[in-house]
């Protein structure tokens, strides 16, 4: 279809004020937080389910690819229109529709910003658990599509454990309800497969989220180490003792320095590693549990322990952790963040390999990780204008993914496959596995118009 007539039709469907089609806009929507870039043919910002449905129906009738987009913070190219088509930006659908506290649910539109929702809930004493580091800007729709994690998912699970229902626009524009406020709806767990499907199966226009009362007590500890191995061993030992804290986060020296320079949160810049351990729940027994954890830290040569005395001190520690990517971003023009995940006991070994890979390719790598989950985030720093360096970055990223797989892990813990890791899929899945996933895709999206070119490799190569 001609671009001009496409724009004309879309204007008719959603109104001129909700269609963007200038070169400047194409430039603004050609990227996300990955290195992938590609311009859409048209951008629409629908304001209702009905409009989304009309746009999808139009795209279906004319076989135009569509891609749902929130805040564009995706780290794997998931929000970039690699095959052109219509970018459906859902940021105008940003209302909290129902605070159904009585049933421990909220119903929201996909464009609601995660932290905004949490702030509203906090006023009522309730909590939506998932806490991706980018929660200040990311949207619920994006979180669900990518199945985002966050520090607290060690104890509380990832986004898909907290999204119980959606209103979904199917490939032909039909609108259906999947899941809902009540648990255990009969039939296949379509919610399960929609979470983390990266916009390849449908477009969510409403979501039902599980909320819970805020925990009575929280204890946050900052543990400082002279060796990264000691930090890693502490993590293994804590879980091995049968203690599952709410978070077990770790950062290496390069990250600590970057964070400290950017935010001045009081992290010691000479430390090899810091571990942020948080407990939450009932206050009873928490002191004893804290003491047990600190004992384990001491047995593993901790240099210093700081226990946050109040909310202000806690906020400061978390500001340092959540700002880590941003801070590291100041060091060089670009970074590529890896998302490999390993069984947590293999973390120290994997980390040593990542350091080796950095040396081998002569690239600085800063490490931030959800240590309790075994989820690594090596941030490879580079300058994309240096083509040789860029080549080395991709080679190093592939090698890190392979290492994680060899350790019994996987290539992505919470950032998604998108375009960036699509080559890595054959490291973990057989041709039959991928064929089974393609059947799911075909059942939801027979014409392959939802976010084409993502998540599933086109050819089925055996591992």
């Amino acid at each position, binding site marked *: 279809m001609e671009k001009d007539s496409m724009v004309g039709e879309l204007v008719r469907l959603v109104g001129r004020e909700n269609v963007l089609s200038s070169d400047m806009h194409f430039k603004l929507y050609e990227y996300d937080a990955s290195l992938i870039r590609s311009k859409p043919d048209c951008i629409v910002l629908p304001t209702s389910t009905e409009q989304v449905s009309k746009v999808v129906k139009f795209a279906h009738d004319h076989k135009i690819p569509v891609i749902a987009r929130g805040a564009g913070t995706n780290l794997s190219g998931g929000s970039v229109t690699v095959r052109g088509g219509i970018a459906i930006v859902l940021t105008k659908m940003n209302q909290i529709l129902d605070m159904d506290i009585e049933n421990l649910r909220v119903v929201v539109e996909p464009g609601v910003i995660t932290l905004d929702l949490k702030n509203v809930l906090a006023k009522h004493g309730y909590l939506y658990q998932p806490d991706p580091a980018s929660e200040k800007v990311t949207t619920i729709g994006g979180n669900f599509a990518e199945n985002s994690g966050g520090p607290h998912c060690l104890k509380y699970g990832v986004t898909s454990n907290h999204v119980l229902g959606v209103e979904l626009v199917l490939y032909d524009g039909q609108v*259906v309800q999947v899941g809902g406020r*009540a*648990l255990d709806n009969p039939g296949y767990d379509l919610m*399960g497969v929609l979470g*983390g*499907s990266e916009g390849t199966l449908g477009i969510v226009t409403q979501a039902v989220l599980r909320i819970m009362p805020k925990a009575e007590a929280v204890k946050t500890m900052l543990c400082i180490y002279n060796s990264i191995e000691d930090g890693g061993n502490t993590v293994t030992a804590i879980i091995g003792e049968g203690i599952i804290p709410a978070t077990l986060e770790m950062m290496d020296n390069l990250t600590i320095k970057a964070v400290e320079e950017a935010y001045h949160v009081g992290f010691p810049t000479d430390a090899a590693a810091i571990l942020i351990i948080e407990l939450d729940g009932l206050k009873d027994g928490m002191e004893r549990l804290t003491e047990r954890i600190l004992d384990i830290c001491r047995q593993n040569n901790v240099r210093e322990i700081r226990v946050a005395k109040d909310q202000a001190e806690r906020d400061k520690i978390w500001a340092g952790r959540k700002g880590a990517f941003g801070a590291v971003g100041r060091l060089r023009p670009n970074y590529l963040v890896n998302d490999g995940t390993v*069984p947590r006991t293999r973390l120290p070994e994997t980390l040593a390999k990542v350091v080796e890979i950095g040396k081998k390719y002569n690239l600085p790598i800063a490490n931030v990780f959800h240590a309790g989950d075994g989820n690594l985030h090596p941030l490879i720093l580079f300058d994309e204008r240096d083509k040789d360096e860029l080549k080395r970055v991709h080679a190093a990223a592939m090698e890190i993914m392979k290492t994680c797989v060899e350790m019994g892990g996987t290539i992505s813990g919470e*950032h998604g*496959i998108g375009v960036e890791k699509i080559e890595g899929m054959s490291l973990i899945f057989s041709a039959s596995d991928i064929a*089974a996933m393609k059947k799911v895709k075909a059942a939801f999206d027979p014409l392959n118009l939802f976010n084409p070119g993502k998540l599933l490799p086109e050819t089925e190569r055996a591992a």
Partner: protein
Amino acid sequence: MSNSNQLVSALNGIVGEPNVIRDPDQLKAYAVDGLAPKAVVNPGSVEEVSRLLAYANSEKLAVVPRGNGTKMAAGGIPRKLDLVLSMLRINRITEHDIPNLSLSVEAGITLSEVQKKLAGTGRGSFLPLDPPYSEQATIGGIIATNSSGPRRYLYSTARDLLLGLKAVSPNGDVVAFGGKTVKNVSGYDMTKLMIGSWGALGVITEITTKLLPLPEASATLLASFGDLAKAGSLTRKILHSVLLPSAMELMDGKAAGQLGEKAKYLVAFSLEGVGEAVDRQVAEIEEAAKSEGALDTRVLKRGDDRTFWIRVRDFALSSAAPIILRTNVVISKLPEILGRYETMARDAGIGCALIGRAGNGILTSYIRDSGAAQTGPVADLIGKFADEAAKHEGNLIVESSPHELKERVSVWGRPRSDYVVMRRLKETVDPGGVLNPGRFVGGV
């Protein structure tokens, strides 16, 4: 050679003659809704399952996967039944990674055997699932039916616990999804799709799950009420408090009576965790119960508490109720609906015991068998129950039922708008209709 002989020689060729049951008398025990299979096969490996399904697919045979058969009275009436595929010989613990708190087991092992092994290894851990019949139920059956129990209030269900699984697709392909990491977004989350798919998308052969360390302490508190509104008010109060019971069950007098408790309404709490927190929760809930007007509160003695929860979990066994209904509603309406069901059953003159998962909005109705004459009235009652559930964004499924009743009610409840996708999914994954045809939602 007749078709029947061909079938037998093909099956014998795959699993060996001793692992094929052909005796008509024995086959009767494997009938589903009165329909007996042509054969029961007992494969000993995933490879044999794969070859069996590939064969069934090419011969257009209908296959019903089976563990210990605790849920064979569930589901729609099969459209066709040729083979029962027993998973009991595929029953190993394949990996117990203690420091990583993860476990991989094959489908045919029973949950009780798994729990025994876990409790006795290292510091002791457990798989936090407590579904009905857990002495007999196999892991494969529990996961395929997404079966759960009272403690899901704290520990949730299989979808929040499983890290990965292996299965055989209807065409015989062996597939593996997920892994052993607690976070994983590589590819579609096929593990969740397989959980609760009732064997209609594939035969689960192995699962990998998270484990939890055994709790340091536990206690059980019972509060009896003369008035449902007051009992409901207590559950609501706890639901919105900072307290974290592992189970909170609200039941009517009939259910309580069958558990040996004298009460018009009973609220049962299970508390687990660190010792200090358990003690405090018992004290606070007891106090809350009294202030809500409980007639009596009681902490069960060690030993008695274990028995109590096994009996709640396995209520169907002790009550000899062949008809089990499961209603899901928004959490806050559970007490009210329990009351409505109680009245409706009484008005219909039908004996019905009610147990509600007050923290999850799941209400189970156990109806005694009163013979064929009652089929009509019971079907009418189920219709009324379903109407009531629908008012509160819920649904009603028939979890267990005699064949005659299934012909008169909708086993999987009211159709939902997403069935269009489910039907397409089944057609795409299993175009030959090999696995459990007719038994799952929407007749797929």
